[in-house]
């Protein structure tokens, strides 16, 4: 098993004709993801040429694309000015999981888009996230496929490339994953640590969880509290930003240390207090996972 995506995922790529959209569509098809449609307004009726001679029909609207293909998931590669609109369209068309890769979406747009998705019962992953991958089953987003392998560990991370780093080390050590989820680093994200923990808790194949956080906010602390109260699977945690000076912006709005709350130190201590094994550096994650699983 896995969470959020699996062999039943039927994917629409929103913005399939753009540079990033077309590149990653090919990558996802290569991996075996069922990419059933693309949407680019004004390009309806055209065809995306995928790897191995496979083609994907392109539609003007999500409504048509869903009606024609029965898709349940979409991934968004459209530019920031239109990305929130793409989320609205996907939710309106009945998509259950909307993976928003786009970086730089205005936060006020996202406040509305998240409200709309909640109203329509859709789950948004991201925005400004690398997506997710259920090794051997489906990949939605931009995570590099070569670094994952099927296995018993669930991975959740706020950052993109740091996730790759951790997953890569697990895979290199022979420890596979059920699903790796990048929840994104924006201030307003649709799916947070606790949402992923709940899903991993319910997934019988997931035996341990790696949770990679960052400075800023209190999402990690809430996740730690949830772990203590609800989870009987081992969790290994890592927090990036131990050397970040307070009050400076480190790359994205999610990583501002405001006052005393949200330092790496505070988060690592909170992890430790709630029974989460804390890795001091990415390379320590593998050892702690082995230990936690009794390998």
């Amino acid at each position, binding site marked *: 098993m896995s969470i959020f995506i699996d062999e039943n995922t039927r994917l629409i790529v929103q913005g399939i004709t753009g540079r990033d959209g077309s590149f990653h569509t090919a990558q996802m098809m290569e991996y075996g993801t069922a990419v059933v449609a693309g949407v680019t307004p004004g390009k309806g009726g055209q065809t995306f040429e995928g790897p191995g001679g496979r083609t994907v029909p392109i539609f003007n609207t999500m409504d048509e694309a869903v009606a024609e293909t029965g898709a349940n998931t979409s991934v968004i590669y459209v530019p920031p000015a239109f990305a929130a609109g793409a989320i609205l369209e996907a939710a309106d068309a009945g998509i259950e999981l909307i993976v928003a890769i786009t970086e730089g979406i205005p936060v006020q747009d996202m406040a509305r888009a998240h409200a709309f998705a909640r109203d329509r019962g859709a789950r948004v992953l991201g925005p400004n996230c690398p997506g997710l991958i259920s090794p051997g089953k489906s990949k939605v987003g931009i995570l590099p496929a070569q670094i994952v392998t099927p296995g018993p560990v669930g991975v959740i991370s706020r950052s993109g490339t740091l996730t790759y780093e951790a997953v890569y080390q697990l895979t290199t050590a022979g420890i596979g994953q059920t699903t790796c989820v990048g929840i994104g680093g924006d201030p307003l994200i649709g799916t947070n640590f606790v949402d992923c923990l709940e899903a991993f808790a319910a997934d019988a194949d997931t035996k341990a969880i790696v949770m990679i956080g960052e400075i800023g906010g209190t999402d990690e602390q809430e996740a730690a509290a949830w772990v203590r109260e609800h989870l009987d699977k081992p969790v290994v945690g890592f927090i990036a930003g131990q050397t970040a000076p307070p009050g400076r912006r480190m790359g994205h709005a999610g990583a501002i240390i405001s*006052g005393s709350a949200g330092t790496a130190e505070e988060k690592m201590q909170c992890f430790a207090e709630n029974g989460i094994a804390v890795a001091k550096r990415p390379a320590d994650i593998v050892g702690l996972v082995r230990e936690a699983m009794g390998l």
Partner: protein
Amino acid sequence: MNIHEYQAKEIFRQAGMPVPPGEVATTPDEAEAIARTYGGTVVVKAQVHSGGRGKAGGVKLASTPEEARAHAEAILGMEIRGLTVNRVLVTPAEDIASEAYVGVLMDRKAQAPTFMVSAEGGVDIEEVAATNPDAIRKLTVDPRYGLLPHQAYWLANALYDDPAIIKQAARVIAQLYDAFRSAGASMAEINPLITTPEGEVKAIDAKVTIDDNELFRHPELEALRDTDAEPWAETRAREAGLSFVKLDGDVGCCVNGAGLAMATMDLVKYYGGDPANFLDIGGSSNPEKVVAALEIITADPNVKVILFNIFGGITRCDDVANGIVEATRRIDIKTPIVIRLTGTNEEEALRILEEAGFSAFTSMDEVVQKAVELAAGA
């Protein structure tokens, strides 16, 4: 993006808010002239992207134009929390009967704008939140409906007893929300919102942070950016689409992704080194960005080694490799470079780098250890 008080006040004025007049001076002469046109007592206020201006001596009352000149002389050039004051705002002094705090910011947990108001104004709201949380009334705005009239009234009702003042304050709060929305702000604050002895409500300080992601919609706001107030490297980084923060170490870092960048800095520290900067080349795969990154890093004389740590997702390793090769052709780089590239198109990237005479790592620990070693030995 931070903007200055006088700029925030202009945004507030456009939203119809009661903001006293004021003009900006960059010299003591100008400050004196402005004070003279207003007559009476004025306030001379340092314009700098930092709180605590009052405590640092950056806000002074002047009862004559000459005094305004003297204060401006003292304040201009002053350093407040590491930032140099290049401008002062000269504004007529107001008679203050009461001071309140009114602010709105985008709240992560509620996923919506959230107001905070307090009858304890003119002080640091974080301090009020820590010491006397009951003195703060909070309200989360439902983004589907916006701030509703009764909600603005309810917030104002927490601040005052006089119905006429509550009504004025409710209007100011509604206007603040409009300003927050229309400016694409992530934070907008009036501290203090005062009442005068005559029963008028006025916003005498203003703070607005613009959401960088909104700037494409607001070219007029981009023009408010005070590039004088930031170092060359930060301006250059922003223009190139990079995130950059200068630090005091000697290991120049160039990483893709904020999380990995921070983890890389942490690892430099872990192995006994000292990062010279935070630098995230972002999620796109534009070789120009790598060129800019190298220019910025090499401009720092402290840097003894340049450490690349790239894990390819959207950023394709071959693009980064091409960028590094192109950059080293364009600029004369004396500093040693160590590179770690893994992920999408990594074989192609390694081939490009090797053809250009670089050697590359695939382990993060190894490349960081190597960088720290080179920095120590240099």
